[in-house]
């Protein structure tokens, strides 16, 4: 015989103002099997929890129903209180009479009736609850970090320094990501490579980090604690362990024209065998087979091999698939810059001296195509007047994206500042809509660009850029004085918006994590779980989640790392017990459940006799992956699969309770 206790919470006036809590309590007391019904102002408070515990003890309850706020809020609180009195945590049920009743209704009488109904349903459910044990999943204490930019590097180093093995996979020939392309960083103006290269080297030398560059994730399967990852190591044509990075090969390569350097964003040329930049980690070249004469002309050219001391160039190397088993994954795939082709009026691509922010970054950089001397791409002259245009693509729902790219205000201010420092007597104009400079030292930095470095800021957008007599004529608006403004510039820098890295959506699908309509990876909770993805064991870091600057990327990398170290500090991972279970006696192995499962949690299981012959094939639920969503329950024809704690008889009893 059930002995149920019902506890009705007022939640101050949150519930009590719209729901007659005393009526709910009275109605509860009338239900057969309910031995105790109480109401209290704040059930979640210490006295509230104590009264719950006392009643469980005194009345020897077999189940508890709380008519209170959403189970998202305090289910855990009440479960823990019940466990202390020896009750299985799953004998605690919540009737949500706040979010689903008091907050959304006005009519007190009808709201009370609804609250009573919800409470009754939960009483019938709890009568039929069975004890459920949480599932424990073993953990492979090794982590995979996807992306070798600043956030990926930070995550890898933090995990590795915590004594855990890390596999770092980077698509490009070198780690460093976008940050290593930058010149100096706002707001402190320390040079990007000066602060980045020590970290890159540390990654390369770390005994706990296994680094795969020029590699991509081919496949991911498994679940938290036990991910099976296939990594495609693309054919580098250079044997990494023998290469000394001497540079003879790329100096000898005859293909030094017409191949644009990706690292310098097409502002310079590279050879077929190349390192993207001098401080590359690892300092091992990659042979680009799509342009190499050896591959294009049937093996004739092998000048690089001829000069190579250790003879580590191997034209026959093939793509290699490496398999790793890891317990957790960090997705730090980074970002790309938006195309600006939709702004024909800005002439990007048409006029050589209209460049993107990242291209200007390369022009400023000492390791860039101009060795840090600002020269126009068209004629190599040093520009005297530069117009910077902010929000190109950002905050433009018509042609670009509606979101703010966050870093452009700051990097434009930095560009104008560095331009003033490098070219004395020069002048920069910045067209902006709003200045967003919200972190430590940022506002002061932007003001400094205006007040000390003389950049003139104009509030308004640019409508058109055209060439006239060797000058770029920029037509814009200054909404503060209410004027149309025309400026003759030597160069124009477009602060193009950021978008997720190309292919990050494919990777997200492979990982089984969600992403938003732009392709940015979404957090499990935007505020309270910012480092976790929607899938257990997969964490997020850096710009892959959305626009952010370097400090924030570092923070997010560290956050993901600390989450993983926390996860790995336990011997096993506990999963809520409310997951699907298969009745193997009735399962007919149609595998409809497998088809509808969004988490790849269902697999085939063969039941064998003692001789090893397969007697029956049934569906099998992987507890590490199952989230208890219930899709398989709906799909099952033979009613052989159920979510624990949400069994058919419980649901029917809930419905029947309303019919009375």
């Amino acid at each position, binding site marked *: 015989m059930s002995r149920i206790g019902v506890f009705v919470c007022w939640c101050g006036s949150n519930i009590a103002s719209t729901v007659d809590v005393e009526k709910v309590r009275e109605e509860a007391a009338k239900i057969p099997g309910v031995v105790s019904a109480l109401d209290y102002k704040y059930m979640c408070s210490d006295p509230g929890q104590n009264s719950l515990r006392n009643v469980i003890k005194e009345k020897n309850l077999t189940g508890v129903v709380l008519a209170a706020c959403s189970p998202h809020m305090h289910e855990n609180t009440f479960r823990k209180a019940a466990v202390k009195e020896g009750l299985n945590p799953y004998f605690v049920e919540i009737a949500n009479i706040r979010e689903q009743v008091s907050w959304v209704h006005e009519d007190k009488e009808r709201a009370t009736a609804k609250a009573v109904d919800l409470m009754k349903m939960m009483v019938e459910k709890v009568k039929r609850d069975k004890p459920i044990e949480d599932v424990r999943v073993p953990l492979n204490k090794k982590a995979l970090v996807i992306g070798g930019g600043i956030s990926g590097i930070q995550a890898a180093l933090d995990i590795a320094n915590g004594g855990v093995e890390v596999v770092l996979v980077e698509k490009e020939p070198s780690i460093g990501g976008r940050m290593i392309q930058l010149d100096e960083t706002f707001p402190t103006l320390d040079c990007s490579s000066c602060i980045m290269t020590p970290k890159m080297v540390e990654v390369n030398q770390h005994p706990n980090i296994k680094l795969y560059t020029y590699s991509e994730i081919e496949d991911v399967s498994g679940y938290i604690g036990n991910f099976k990852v296939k990594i495609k190591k693309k054919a580098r044509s250079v044997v990494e362990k023998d290469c000394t990075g001497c540079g003879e090969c790329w100096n000898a390569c005859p293909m030094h024209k017409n191949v644009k350097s990706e690292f310098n964003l097409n502002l310079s040329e590279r050879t077929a065998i190349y390192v993207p930049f001098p401080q590359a980690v690892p300092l091992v070249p990659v042979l680009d087979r799509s342009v190499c004469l050896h591959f294009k002309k049937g093996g004739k050219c092998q000048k690089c091999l001829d000069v190579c001391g250790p003879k580590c160039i191997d034209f026959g190397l093939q793509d290699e698939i490496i398999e790793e088993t890891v317990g957790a994954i960090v997705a730090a795939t980074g970002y790309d810059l938006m195309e600006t082709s939709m702004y024909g009026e800005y002439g990007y691509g048409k006029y050589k001296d209209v460049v993107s922010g990242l291209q200007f970054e390369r022009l400023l950089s000492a390791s860039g195509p101009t060795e840090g001397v600002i020269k126009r791409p068209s004629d190599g002259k040093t520009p005297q*007047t530069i117009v910077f245009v902010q929000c190109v693509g950002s905050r433009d729902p018509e042609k670009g994206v509606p979101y703010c790219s966050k870093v452009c205000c700051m990097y434009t201010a930095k560009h104008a500042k560095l331009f003033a420092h490098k070219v004395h007597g020069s*002048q920069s*104009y910045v067209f902006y809509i709003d200045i967003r400079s919200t972190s430590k030292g940022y506002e002061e930095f932007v*003001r400094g660009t*205006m*007040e000390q470095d*003389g*950049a*003139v800021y*104009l*509030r308004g957008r640019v409508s058109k850029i055209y060439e006239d007599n060797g000058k770029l004529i920029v037509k814009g608006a*200054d909404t*503060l*004085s*209410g*004027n*149309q*403004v*025309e*400026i*003759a510039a030597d160069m124009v820098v477009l602060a193009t918006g950021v978008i997720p890295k190309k292919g990050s959506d494919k990777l997200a699908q492979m990982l089984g994590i969600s992403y938003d309509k732009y392709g940015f990876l979404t957090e499990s909770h935007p505020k309270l779980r910012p480092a976790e993805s929607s899938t257990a064991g997969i964490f997020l870091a850096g710009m892959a989640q959305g626009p952010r600057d370097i400090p924030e990327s570092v923070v997010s990398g560290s956050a993901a790392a600390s989450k993983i170290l926390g996860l790995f500090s336990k011997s096993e991972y506990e999963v809520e017990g409310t997951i699907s279970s298969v009745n193997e006696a009735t399962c007919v192995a149609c595998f409809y459940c497998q088809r509808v499962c969004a988490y790849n949690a269902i697999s085939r299981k063969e039941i064998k006799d003692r001789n090893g012959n397969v007697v029956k094939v049934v569906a099998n639920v992987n507890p590490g992956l199952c989230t208890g969503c219930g899709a398989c329950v709906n799909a099952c024809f033979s009613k052989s699969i159920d979510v624990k704690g949400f069994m058919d008889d419980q649901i029917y009893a809930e419905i029947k309770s309303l019919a009375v």
Partner: protein
Amino acid sequence: MKTVLNEQNRRNFVAQVESMLHDKLSKCYQCGKCSAGCPVNFEMDYTPNQIIKMTELGMEDSVLNSKTIWLCVSCNTCSTRCPKGFEVTGIMDVLREIAERKGITSKTEKEVQMFHEVFLENVKSHGRIFELELVGKYKLKTKHLFRDMFLAPKMLEKGKLKIHGEKISNLNQVAKIFKDFE
């Protein structure tokens, strides 16, 4: 209105204003607090913050011919309240001075301009204000002889208007200030 920015002209104008102002135009971040509190804003063609921006952009003709610079009563509400400590009142003074030196006559605010001229003459000859002479000369110049005439007895009664003007003792020092300035 369309403005073609000529960089050299812009820089020259900004440099001229800033050297007279002893303040930097780029300090202004266009919050508009000056305009919000300005008691004569409703009569102005450009708000005070617009004047600052236009000066920064080198729109010399527009600012020097604006009503705003002559309508400013130098009450200092703007400068007192400016969060950046910018000399808003000061820029009006500077622009009036530049306009005056260039011989630009305000088309709409002639009388204000005349008042300024008479006022300075008065200070130059007395070292301080002699109200009766100031009013007299102003009325002769503007030919509004009888305007506000009925205020005179009241002001006399309260001792606000003196029949005899007084000069300060070291008038030569005031003369020096004027000389330095010119």
